[in-house]
């Protein structure tokens, strides 16, 4: 089992139909599954974020809306029904467009953004073999696709015909394009070490040797550069200047409402999941069990290792969720940087450091 598309093609090969039809099925099926997964992801992530925020701010968060056992004054499951209440509210809201807005661009810009996020998932694995298509250029593809969204952001900001949106879009474009450079350079460092752009190869290297974060001091630094840069690329605090609610109202999504706004939201949380999964795959051993470092000769390895396909999903998701939690922790702790300080951090700190890192890791590789 190499990838989902291959699996589907193999299992459907006994049906005697045209190969193009077969390919179509193999493409549409994972796409639908991914879309549903993303919808579930945003619902759960928003609930998680609200609870995390409430925890940090000394309050309870959503507590009132329950699904079962609500009657009789008994609240159930800590307001988990809020997820559905939020979803229904967003989807049934009136879709307002400003009179002077560019209607067509305003309509397509949310879909460009969400398409970028969903296309990235083709190269994102959830466990060993649980990947839509395991290309040999996986990492490059992920970097390329995650920068598609910025086109949608610029279109959204321009088409709204609102000065705040324009500011937000310009800031966002500058920010995302700048922060792509340190992200690319840190990922390149890993590619140099393991000699492959393929996602499964990178994890294989880590299972044979060790996690990349423990590979060398440079890889350790690279992890932090990568993580801070992706926080900036997903527009999260302290780098949320494109939507800075105290300055730009809501930045480039000021004029969007209802379904289109919920699509923005979906892609934002999808992007968070993407960058966390990529960070776990590239630096934290992907679907490998963290217990692999323990060597106990008197207990059989299978008892404590907890490795395998299903455990792989668990470990990868656990690592990703921890990283997502850290991002939320940032958001509810830090103030926001100013736009020039943000650019300073990128161009004068991260890029020189990651270039030096890249140079030093090659020397490290030559010596060891």
């Amino acid at each position, binding site marked *: 089992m190499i990838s989902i598309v291959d699996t589907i093609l193999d299992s459907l090969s006994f049906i005697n139909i045209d190969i193009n039809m077969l390919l179509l099925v193999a493409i549409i099926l994972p796409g639908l599954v991914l879309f549903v997964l993303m919808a579930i992801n945003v619902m759960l992530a928003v609930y998680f974020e609200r609870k995390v*925020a409430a925890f*940090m701010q000394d309050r309870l968060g959503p507590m009132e809306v329950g699904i079962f056992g609500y009657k009789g004054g008994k609240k159930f499951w800590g307001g988990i029904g809020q997820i559905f209440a939020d979803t229904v509210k967003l989807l049934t809201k009136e879709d307002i467009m400003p009179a002077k807005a560019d209607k067509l661009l305003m309509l397509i810009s949310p879909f460009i953004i969400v398409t970028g996020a969903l296309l990235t998932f083709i190269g994102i694995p959830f466990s060993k073999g649980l990947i839509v298509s395991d290309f040999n250029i996986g990492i490059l593809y992920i970097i390329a696709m995650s920068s598609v969204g910025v086109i949608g952001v610029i279109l959204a900001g321009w088409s709204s015909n609102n000065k705040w949106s324009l500011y937000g879009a310009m800031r966002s474009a500058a920010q995302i394009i700048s922060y792509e450079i340190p992200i690319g350079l840190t990922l390149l460092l890993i590619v140099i070490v393991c000699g492959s752009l393929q996602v499964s190869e990178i994890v294989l290297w880590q299972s044979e040797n060790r996690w990349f974060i423990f590979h060398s001091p440079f890889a350790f630094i690279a992890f932090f550069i990568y993580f801070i840069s992706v926080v900036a690329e997903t527009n999260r605090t302290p780098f949320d200047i494109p939507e800075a609610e*105290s300055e730009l109202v809501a930045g480039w999504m000021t004029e969007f409402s209802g379904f289109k706004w919920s699509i923005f939201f979906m892609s934002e949380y999808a992007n968070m999941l993407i960058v966390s999964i990529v960070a776990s795959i590239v630096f934290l051993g992907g679907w490998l069990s963290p217990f692999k470092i323990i060597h106990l000769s008197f207990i059989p390895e299978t008892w404590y290792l907890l490795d395998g396909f299903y455990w792989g999903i668990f470990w990868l998701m656990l690592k990703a969720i921890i990283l997502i939690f850290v991002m939320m922790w940032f958001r509810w702790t830090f*103030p*926001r*940087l*100013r736009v020039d*300080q943000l650019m300073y951090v990128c161009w004068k700190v991260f890029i020189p450091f990651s270039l030096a890192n890249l140079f030093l890791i090659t020397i490290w590789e030559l010596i060891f």
Partner: protein
Amino acid sequence: MFKVIDKSIINTDEMVLNMGPQHPSTHGVLRLKIITDGEIVNKVEPIIGYLHRCFEKHCENLPYEQIVPFTDRCDYLASMHMSHAYSMTVEKLLDIKLPERVEYIRVIVSELQRIASHLIAVGAFGLDVGAITPFTWTLRDRERILDLFELLCGARLLYNYVWPGGVSHDLPVKFIERTYEFLDYFLPQIDEYNQLLTTNKIFIERSADVGVLPLDVGINFGVTGPSLRASGTNFDLRKDEPYSVYDKFDFNIPVGEGLMGSVGDCWDRYYVRVLEMKESVKIVRQALDSLPKGDVHEVLPKKIRPNKGEVYSRYESARGDVGFYIRSDGKNIPTRVKMRSPAYCNLSVLNEISSGWMISDIIAILGSLDIVLGEIDR
């Protein structure tokens, strides 16, 4: 193929950006006309009047007692200060000597109110630079002060507690114990705010050296209160022209020292407020320790009918120097009431200190001046 662009049709004008009156961080319904060059701000023009409620005109048609609730609504974050300032002026006009207990109770509620108001200022400044959690923390602690005031007079925001000639109720049972409890609880919280926000590197980057208000500019524009003290002077009416019983207490006037940047920057204006909360805790504790006994309604006039004359008095509110001018023609209705609003003068300096900074900094500077639109527009 491709056209040569005519350079003369490309406009590189300044952009006029309208911020407010509906904007998350203009602290109410302030409208700012910002002339920008990209992100850089060239000129800021505050446009006020969206919350104008004809306070001064109302006063000309109401008996002296009935003006007190209107003063509460001027600075709704520091209602006690407003009614205290007004009551002081009327007492000066009537020439009443108040019982000690009334003065002590007034000092206690004023200083508690100062803490509550500064909590909002500190939290909202955090919110303006993008930190959301400090705001909820400061509101959580302000809630305890509002609980005390609710115990005191039943209201949580607009109290109508300080009356000309006294206060509406004596201190209720358990008020003193609960205030002591609050003070014990509150002092460690200030250190927690400092850990979360004040000493945060990003916060310092955002606020230090930003929007520096030189002392001479501040004095020329009539800036008062914590915003002026952050520029390096210890002008405080509680010390310089002690009213009520402030001369009996031992407290310091925090002054901006430029710990993180230069004297008079946003960080200083923020930090002076944090320090003032500590001083207010000291004052409340001293006042509670030496609270005299007595009747709070002893000299409360049944009907206020001052002699012909005019009077002006000054009061140090949470935002600065509040002045009330009252002219009486010998009737039970004042002929003219004029209020000097500290936030109005503080806001006037905005253009002076914010040109050349970025849009994000305008928000921070505005937040650090701590304006209340109810008081500016009146």
